[in-house]
């Protein structure tokens, strides 16, 4: 539930779903694998103290990067989008992993975070892929600008 209720993880996941959907189903399918795998790797790594100051700032920046890419409706090559999704998955999973406390079973927590990420990206990408009308494409770009704007504000108070 953490990935769903924590805005700092939810919005970038939505951004990845929007971006993947904009690229079309062929590329979106690869993102559906890359992002959850990245999350799992990140949760596993996050239980240590590696790059503890860099990762949170990088995650805040992910809002802006993903939001601008969606707002600009910029076409991405497959390798770039999969790489971006995996890297952001790792960094967001890392922050999730940092919050793993004694009350949780690590394996189940890892599976939960990965599954939540998969579901968010899958649902959002599926909706985006299915849109046909021009105003719906504009609404997707507007949503991207919102994510980027929220990210800028998030960086401001970081």
């Amino acid at each position, binding site marked *: 539930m953490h990935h769903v209720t924590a805005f700092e993880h939810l*919005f970038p996941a939505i951004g990845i779903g929007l971006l993947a959907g904009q690229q079309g189903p062929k590329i979106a399918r690869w993102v559906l694998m890359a992002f959850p795998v990245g999350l799992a790797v990140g949760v596993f790594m996050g239980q240590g103290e590696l790059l503890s100051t860099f990762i949170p700032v990088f995650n805040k920046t992910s809002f802006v990067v993903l939001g601008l890419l969606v707002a600009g409706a910029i076409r991405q090559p497959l390798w770039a989008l999969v790489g971006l999704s995996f890297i952001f998955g790792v960094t967001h999973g890392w922050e999730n992993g940092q919050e793993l406390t004694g009350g949780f079973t690590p394996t189940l927590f890892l599976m939960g975070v990965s599954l939540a990420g998969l579901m968010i990206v899958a649902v959002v990408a599926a909706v985006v892929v299915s849109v046909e009308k021009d105003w719906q494409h504009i609404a997707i770009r507007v949503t991207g*600008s919102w994510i980027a704007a929220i990210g800028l504000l998030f960086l401001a108070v970081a």
Partner: protein
Amino acid sequence: MNFVEEANQMRFLSLQLLGHASGGVGDGFMSGFLHPVFGFDHLVAMVAVGLWGAQLRQPAIWVLPVTFPLVMAFGGVFGANGLSLPAVEQGIAISAVVLGIMVAFCVRPPFWVAGVMVGVFAFFHGHAHGSELPHAVVPLAYGAGFVIATGLLHLAGIALGALIEWKRGDYFVRSCGVAVCVVGLYFLCSSLLAT
């Protein structure tokens, strides 16, 4: 269990489900969301942006809602970091006056002129919202709230602006512009008298 008891139990359960978010994220989001909605000067100006975008048609009708949040966020960054902007309240009020006039008279300047005007107004509005950010319970949620509320107000303006396709609808939209201008003048006078 009767209906009232069941309704109370459902309400209790929903509050429990929100428990992970409420008291912090939920309150922060609602506070940010309601800031432009209950701030009448913000509300009318944001709806006017949507109305004017609809009057300007392509590409303004989609460029404005895409770029406005981003420029507003830059203003918010300034406000959140305590960087002062002179006459913020007056600037917001003037934005409502000017946008109201643009809508009332269906003024169609060159696209870049409209973009610069709206960009300047977005910066002022963002500064006002951003100034509240450091005091928010959960700043991220507060920021998300006011960005989304602003975007939805634009969309409401664009939806209303679709009425310009009909003659009476066009008169209605222009009347909305007059109303926005009047509200802006009220806030401008209030802020000048207060200083």
